[in-house]
């Protein structure tokens, strides 16, 4: 079981998608089947944290089979405490995506769910691959279903957004591909651990490693997105259907931060240390800038998208602080952001289904017709604001503390993000929910349905659980982060000596 579990978790959605292709064109059947498959994926993925050896730092549930002999490509999967949770995050959000698309997608329904399932496999694949070729394969594979979901099921300017998304990511990825091929040429292996060993043994020159570092960085920076490469994000989010946005914000962006952590830090610690200052500067700009732009957005969905830029800035800051607390916090923030921003997009989508607009000025006083909805929104908003005992706080706190430890000024600047997030979210909440209902269309809005409740409850519960008992997650993250940081720590000690 242990050897096959990752394969199962990764490919069950794809198998579902393949099966679905032979289905008759019956929408209801497609929906239910997609739900069952994603739920099955989630249940299977729970095997990972339940059987994960928490104290260990290496990869677990590994499977390593040669796939192609020349070039030497392996089917090598495995997770550590970082990627495991990202896998679970993906499988956790997928059934919710199915639920939230139940009614909002009504044309080419079967195809939609097929794309969704393929996307899920690609996303999980990115996190579990330990072979760089395989990783790249999944990385690019995720692009196609996502671009199609945006381009086919999006709103008015969907094609523009899909193309923008596709091109942006492609351009970034090309440099990564070059770096991967170059590394293969020099080391004769695509395997993560083998390349890591080669890097540590000094087989690759500093200069060359730097170019590889930058190649990877560019690919991930686009994905995160790091300022100023972020402008594809608001468009993609705005145009994407709800489920697309949920997976985009919840998981796709984490591919970038995960990559930074796994490859830029894991393979090139020296280069990372050398170049951390300007990357951190960009991260901090992202935190403040994203929040500022979010604050004046008249459009609810773009507002949430820009808030992602701000929140992901925290993640990058944490990663490049090279402190245990900072990186722990960054990983935690990835998960927390996945849950709460995923939920925020679901909430925004629910509103769109009812009013077919994202303009904040179109709403007002919604707490009166939709009290339950308003309550969910409040909880998720507060978790996004980073209120203690909810998930957002833990990550933010750890990141800030790590950044502060790395350099006080980082912490000080980033801490203003705490203020900004309160500004834009509370103000938005006030404009959408408080006051009297001033539009007839809003007065009769139905509160959330049972199905929507089922989709939202897990996120709210996760937000609370992750805030109250963060150690359940952190104690798996910590050893993995320590492993990533240990070469850096050794370097730091070397510097001291």
């Amino acid at each position: 079981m242990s050897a096959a579990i990752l394969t199962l978790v990764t490919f069950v959605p794809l198998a579902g998608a393949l099966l679905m292709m032979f289905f008759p064109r019956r929408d209801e059947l497609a929906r239910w089947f997609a739900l069952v498959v994603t739920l099955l994926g989630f249940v299977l993925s729970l095997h990972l944290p339940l059987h994960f050896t928490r104290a260990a730092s290496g990869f677990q549930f590994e499977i390593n089979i040669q796939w192609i002999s020349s070039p030497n490509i392996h089917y090598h999967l495995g997770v550590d405490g970082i990627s495991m949770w990202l896998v679970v995050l993906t499988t956790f959000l997928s059934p919710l995506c199915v639920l939230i698309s139940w009614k909002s997608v009504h044309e080419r329904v079967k195809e939609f769910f097929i794309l969704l399932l393929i996307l899920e496999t690609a996303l999980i694949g990115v996190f579990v691959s330990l072979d760089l070729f395989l990783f790249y394969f999944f990385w690019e594979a995720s692009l196609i279903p996502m671009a199609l979901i945006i381009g086919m099921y999006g709103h008015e300017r969907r094609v523009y957004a899909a193309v923008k998304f596709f091109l942006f990511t492609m351009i970034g990825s090309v440099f990564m591909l070059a770096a991967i091929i170059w590394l293969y040429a020099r080391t004769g292996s695509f395997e993560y651990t083998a390349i890591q060993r080669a890097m540590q043994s000094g087989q690759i020159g500093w200069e060359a490693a730097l170019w590889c570092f930058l190649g990877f960085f560019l690919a991930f920076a686009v994905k995160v997105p790091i300022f100023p490469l972020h402008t594809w994000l608001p468009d993609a989010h705005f145009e994407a259907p709800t489920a697309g946005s949920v997976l985009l914000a919840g998981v796709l962006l984490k591919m970038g931060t995960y990559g930074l952590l796994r490859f830029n830090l894991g393979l090139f610690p020296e280069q990372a240390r050398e170049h951390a200052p300007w990357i951190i500067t960009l991260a901090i700009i992202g935190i403040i800038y994203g929040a500022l732009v979010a604050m004046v957005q008249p459009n609810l969905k773009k507002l949430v998208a820009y808030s992602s830029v701000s929140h992901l800035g925290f993640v990058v800051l944490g990663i490049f602080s090279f402190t245990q607390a900072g990186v722990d916090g960054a990983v935690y923030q990835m998960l927390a952001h996945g849950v709460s921003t995923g939920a925020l997009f679901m909430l925004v989508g629910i509103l769109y289904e009812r009013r077919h607009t994202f303009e904040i000025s179109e709403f007002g006083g919604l707490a009166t017709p939709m009290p339950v909805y308003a309550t969910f929104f409040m909880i998720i908003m507060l978790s996004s604001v980073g209120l203690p005992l909810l998930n957002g706080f833990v990550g933010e706190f750890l990141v800030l503390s790590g950044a502060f430890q790395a350099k006080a000024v980082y912490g000080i600047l980033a801490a203003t993000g705490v203020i900004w997030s309160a500004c834009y979210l509370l103000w938005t909440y006030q404009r959408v929910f408080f006051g009297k209902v001033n539009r007839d269309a809003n007065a009769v809005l139905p509160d959330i349905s049972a199905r929507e409740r089922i989709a939202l409850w897990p996120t709210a519960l996760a937000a609370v659980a992750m805030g109250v008992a963060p150690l359940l997650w952190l104690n798996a993250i910590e050893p993995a982060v320590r492993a990533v940081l240990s070469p850096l720590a050794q370097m730091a000690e070397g510097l001291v000596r």
Partner: protein
Amino acid sequence: MFFLNHIWIIPLLPALGAALMFFFGRKLSKSAVSFFCVGLVVVAFVFSCLTVLQYTGWAAAHNHQPFEKIVYTWLGSDTSNLGYLTHSGRAADFHVDAGFLLDPLSAIWLLFVTGVGMLIHIYSIGYMAHEGGYYRFFGYMNLFMFTMLTLVLGNNYVMLFVGWEGVGLCSYLLIGFYFLKKSATNAANKAFIVNRIGDAGFLLGMFTIAWYLGSFRFTQITEVARSGRLSTGDPTITLACLLLFVGACGKSAQVPLYVWLPDAMEGPTPVSALIHAATMVTAGVYMVARSNALFVLAPEAMKTVAIIGAVTAIFAASIGLVQNDIKRVLAYSTVSQLGYMFLALGVGAFAAGVFHVFTHAFFKALLFLGAGSVIHALSSEQDMRHMGALVHKIPTTFKTMLIATLAIAGIFPFAGFFSKDEILWQAWSADNGAYRALWYIGYATAFMTAFYMFRLMYLTFWSPSRVEHEVEHHIHESPKSMTIPLIVLAFFSLFAGFLGWPHSLKGSNRFEKFLEPVFAREATQFDKSGKEAQLAAAKKEEEHANPTEYFLMILSLGAAFAGWGLAKRSYGKAAEGYTEPIAATAPPAYRVLYNKWYVDEAYDYLFTGRRKLGPVRLGAMGAGEAAWAVDANFVDGGVNGAGWTTRALAKLSVWWDTWIIDGLLVNGIAYSTRPLSWLTRMIQWGLVQWYALVMVAGILGFVLYYIFR
């Protein structure tokens, strides 16, 4: 030991109430809501009393140690691999526990938070009886109790911060309780955001301490701070203390972050009493007092605290002089009294500051609840210009409010006298009179306090009635559930001060003695340490019997009575259309005070950007708009520009391809073959006659050539 070991149950009791309201509140009847929510707070109060009782026994046997109980590890960050050693040389321990701490300081807060909280919960049954969202109100109130108790009982800065943010949330929810009102939700946002500014400072202060001293835990930090390894005036500690104080300024409404508290009066009155007067706003005082071991190492920070406190005290009092909304007067009064508390902390009189928190909790809660009772009686009228002559119509409210007024004005032997006098005396005497300038400010504030409070009393109760006719008929005393809390609070407003009966008046100041284990080594001598400080403290004790102290006592009593007298003269006969004495004597000053020194306007122009300064918008909104413009035009413009350039290049290539490569070269060559082929076709036509003709012509040509050569 049951209660001590299960101290974590105390905050969980109201949390349970909040959870019940969250899940089932809608379906519960009002009496069921009151039963659970009020009942659980009563249980929490009883539990707290028993816990504190048990603690006093335990402490006596344990050298007055603080009691700590760790329930589980909340956050852990192992830094061992970084080889990180703290300033003090001990290995850093960044485990943040869900841990609880009980010592005299938290015991005092625990008791008055649960006690006053309980009374206000009972009061709310009557006050909120006719309001919608009954369960929502009590759910929020219970949530507040939970977070406030977490704040008070946490054994480390992070737990304190959890409670700190939590009370901020509840404050936000309760200020915005009437969420249909724009002004209420504006005020709620303002409260949360201004508090967040303070919170950012608090966070940074916390990090500074943690990375410098290696722990978030109070006991460990205090141990390091008192170990003598840190020198007085250590710049990092000073910075940390200042940052913490930024947090305190937010939560406890000090200049320049006080602006949210007056607006917070948009919430229901019991909320103003509980959160914005008695408990939550004193959290900043608690935090500074809790950090006393650090603050005494940072004289500069202490000085800042004292100065900000004094400035806030007189500044807020000056605004309170002329406000007409009864709750607003009380709100500014709260800000001002909080200033007193920080003044006390700043001059090193921690116990005096805490004592004022304690007495203030009773009389200010009482004032707010009394004001609530007045508002209740007058069908929601809050403007004192439309009050008057209520003295016989709502006698219980009147009597209890009078006691509270006497207490806050500092008239002997009411509670406020003892605490305020202690603060003023400490301001006078601390550090050999280094802070005497602040005494003058405090003294002037005492006079102003008496004036505005009696102004409130005269305008509300004693002056001729200016109540609108419609309202006049409905005036009624509040129900028992509201008056009984008033009476209980009045009792404490009268007698709570006796706990701190000073040595100079032949008392024993039990309050200070109780707190001694927390502040012992600090006293006021923060520039000395160890034995020297104890000696100095003993010397000060003697000084306490100083004739100056009696003289100052009489002086402040004089100020209180002067304020009273002036208020009586000005408002005793205030009939319809009365004029404010300040407005009559100095209209510009009145305008400035009435408009609250235009601070809100200035903030709107400079910081929020809600108002435009001419054509420009500054502040947060301005920055946001600028950032968006950059994003749309520059960053995304760059992207689109790159896209456009690519497309233009593509078009150019298409043109090149079509016209040059394909047109000129490929097709050009192809086309040019056609005329060329004509030439060759001419000789390859396949027409024999033509060949013959050409041949003849050729021969002819040759012949002619040779002939004419």
